[in-house]
């Protein structure tokens, strides 16, 4: 299956195999997202059974183009299709398109500005109307409609001259070269023009409460605050679906989520998954399968580089050396998560494995500070030029694992003459202006640097992305390095994966040297499924464990 589908992409078979090796999670064959031959379709059995997915946040946004959070993705991926999808190996696969446009196949012009996408001709909306290039045009235009409460507009705002060449072909021009757009389109679900074009206010359309897509499942019903139910779409153009119903059940508490997984009420624990402290017990439950799935997010100790304490590299190096990461990972996270040196997820094709490993060494940390002239004052806290090496640290209150990490750090920092004061905030408060406008000294948070698994981290690392200084991104640590800026710009304008990899390897090297933030570990999610559920596979390149419900089936 993998071979058949990957030969149609911009990446050669050799590349694909290399990617799979690099990804290290190529334990399953890539799902067949490009449809199936008619013979296979006729041989299919009727979809049967039901899968109940547990989520600890409630999905509430069903128009996939509107501002939404990760948990809504679980529903969107089942109801809708995008032009392309990102498979578990990080390879782009055609979805509503028949091929992924590249400079090689002529889908993207040599200068990177003119794009052409060819579409399938056998796709129908859940209400029976045919899907055409007009829907794609409408979707991309709706996103940039100033009245519409759209989700991300990055990339989309560069699209000009959208032209429907035929029902199965659409072209556009980009205002500037922007390679990540290809990945962005994997999270841009296409919505039906005929149901939305006549709405005076697209934010209040009936469609938003009862969406109609092209996906493997149709909207069935929603009991607000409790669950929502999707039903198999027998006319789905792709492989599947094999189960008759998918239910997304909202379970607001992670402990209760786990209890209901144990009791058998839910078949799959999606976000926020099983807590690491339950991993050991969960993996011994009869009739349950528990998997460790690498996530895209990296838990880090964020430094506000505009604070005088952190301007010097030696201080950042000393703090990094004073982190007992092994103890934190083993004692607090039960060894479930893994150490990392970079913001790039380990499964990414662009992950640089050659970065120097952090070493916990308090003597080295003290020497770094001594050499840099930070000397202990009368209270034992180091200072230099009137600046004390003391700061606040904030994380989301109520997250007891993070609170334990803080205590570990507070202790080892104290041993090198650094005073860390814990000052936590509820998530709803922390991630407002406090975080976005860099009002913290230091913060602990799990952050995803990539958008739709594209390696471009401009929004997190470029000096133009500092919101506290009027920038447009979320470079909350206020990191600024002209070389990184230039490389990020180059990377965003390069299409060839090999050439891009070189660029992002270098960026990771520089960031590892500069230490704008101190990586604690790469996230790993504990995901439980009921025995007998087949066809479920994790995909670290999406934000949800339910990215491919079309392939799920119960063992007969």
């Amino acid at each position: 299956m993998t071979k058949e589908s990957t030969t149609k992409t911009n990446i050669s078979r050799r590349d694909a195999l290399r990617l799979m090796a690099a990804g290290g999670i190529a334990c399953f064959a890539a799902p067949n997202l490009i449809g199936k031959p008619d013979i296979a379709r006729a041989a299919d059995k009727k979809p049967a059974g039901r899968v109940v997915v547990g989520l600890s946040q409630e999905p509430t946004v069903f128009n996939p183009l509107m501002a939404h959070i990760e948990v809504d993705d679980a529903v969107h991926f089942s109801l809708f299709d995008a032009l392309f999808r990102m498979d578990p190996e990080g390879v782009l696969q055609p979805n509503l398109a028949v091929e992924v446009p590249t400079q090689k196949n002529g889908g993207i012009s040599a200068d990177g500005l003119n794009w052409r996408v060819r579409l399938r001709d056998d796709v129908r909306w859940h209400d029976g109307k045919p899907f055409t290039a007009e829907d794609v045009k409408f979707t991309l235009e709706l996103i940039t409609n100033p009245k519409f409460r759209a989700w991300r507009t990055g990339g989309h705002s560069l699209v000009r001259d959208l032209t429907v060449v035929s029902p199965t072909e659409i072209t556009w021009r980009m205002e500037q070269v922007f390679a990540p757009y290809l990945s962005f389109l994997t999270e841009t679900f296409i919505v039906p023009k005929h149901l939305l074009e006549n709405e005076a206010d697209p934010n209040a359309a009936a469609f938003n409460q009862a969406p109609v897509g092209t996906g493997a499942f149709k909207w069935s019903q929603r009991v607000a605050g409790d669950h929502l139910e999707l039903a198999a779409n027998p006319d789905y153009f792709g492989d599947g679906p094999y189960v008759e119903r998918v239910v997304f059940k909202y379970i607001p508490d992670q402990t209760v989520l786990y209890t209901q997984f144990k009791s058998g009420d839910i078949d799959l624990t999606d976000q926020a998954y099983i807590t690491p402290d339950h991993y050991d017990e969960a993996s011994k439950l009869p009739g349950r399968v528990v998997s460790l799935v690498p996530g895209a997010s990296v838990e880090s100790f964020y430094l506000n580089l505009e604070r005088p304490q952190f301007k010097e590299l030696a201080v950042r190096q000393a703090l990094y050396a004073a982190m007992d990461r092994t103890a934190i990972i083993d004692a607090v996270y039960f060894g479930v998560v893994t150490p990392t040196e970079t913001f790039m997820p380990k499964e990414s094709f662009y992950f640089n494995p050659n970065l120097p490993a952090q070493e916990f060494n308090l003597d080295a940390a003290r020497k770094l500070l001594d050499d840099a002239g930070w000397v202990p004052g009368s209270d034992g806290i180091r200072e230099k030029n009137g600046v004390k090496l003391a700061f606040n640290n904030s994380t989301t209150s109520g997250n007891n694992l993070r609170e334990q990490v803080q205590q570990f750090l507070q202790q080892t920092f104290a041993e090198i003459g650094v005073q860390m004061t814990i000052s936590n905030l509820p998530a709803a408060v922390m991630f407002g202006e406090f975080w976005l406008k860099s009002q913290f000294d230091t913060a602990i948070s799990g952050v995803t640097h990539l958008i739709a698994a594209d390696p471009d981290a401009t929004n997190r690392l470029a000096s133009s992305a500092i919101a506290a200084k009027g920038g447009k991104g979320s470079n909350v640590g206020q990191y600024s390095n002209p070389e990184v800026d230039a490389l990020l710009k180059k990377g965003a304008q390069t299409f060839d994966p090999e050439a891009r990899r070189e660029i992002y390897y270098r960026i990771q090297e520089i960031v590892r040297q500069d230490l704008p933030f101190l990586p604690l570990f790469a996230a790993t999610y504990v995901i439980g499924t009921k025995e007998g559920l087949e066809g479920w596979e994790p995909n670290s390149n999406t934000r949800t464990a339910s990215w491919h419900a079309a392939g799920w089936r119960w063992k007969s």
Partner: protein
Amino acid sequence: MRSFLFNRFAQSLVLLLIVSVIGFVVLNLIPGGPLAQFGLDASMTQDDLNRLAEQLGLNRPLWMQYLDWAWRLLRGDWGHSFRDGAPVLEVIGRHLMATLLLMGSSTVIAIAIGTWIGVRGAVKRYSVFDYMATVGAMVALSIPTFWFGLIGIYVFSLRLGWLPAGNMYTIGDESVLNYLHHLILPSIVLALVHVAIWSRYMRTATLDVINQEFIKTARAKGLSERRILMKHVIGNALLPMITLLGMQLPSVLTGALVTETVFTWPGMGRLFLDSLGYSDYPVVMGLLMFSAILVVVSNLAADIVVAIIDPRIRLS
């Protein structure tokens, strides 16, 4: 009676106005705001956040936002949820039934058992039963609902497998029996605290009545103890309880919060907590006004009912 009603009505309007202003200001003072949920999303640039703030009207001065909201409310428009875009009253309505079901069944249990324990404890004052009831009530009030709920789930769901571990019904089976089956554990857990409160109040109320002259008169008339208890004692002791019930009614909004979380019950308490977590201002304000109106109306109703039942109370 008419001037009483008019006064109460005028007072209520002022009260609602004050509640709405304080609620609106406090809610907006909490840092974070509705856009904090996108704070960790790498793709939402500051431009995107500013655009959303403008589209939601959040960048206007606070007084303007309040007047806009209040003016719409006066015309019957409670606004739309920031989260799912549905009208606020519809959002409340969806969760109200779940809470009423849970509160209703637990209130019935609490009143029945609480009345029995309270009356028995008062009649047989300082008996072993009375002491046990007192201690039992103390224990029930001290146990956190969360803990009791989890223990209940552990014993009856995970160990014995008799009762469901939570949820309002099994997905795919919406029969009455299924609802009842799911209702047992959470209503008992929720009733526990209310039994304790109710039995204490009932005991005091009964003791008040039992020593009254008219009970002596009833005894002197030669009525049986049973008849005295059922007709004269309980009937009169229940009077102050109507006020208590009226005061407890608004707790449908928050009273079941913990129970709703443990048993994944999609009620009002959870809606309130979730809406607060996402700073869904229209829904939080809607719930606040809804509960304020409920407090006003139920207190008024309790006063009127007591006045009708007990002719000694004159409302003039």
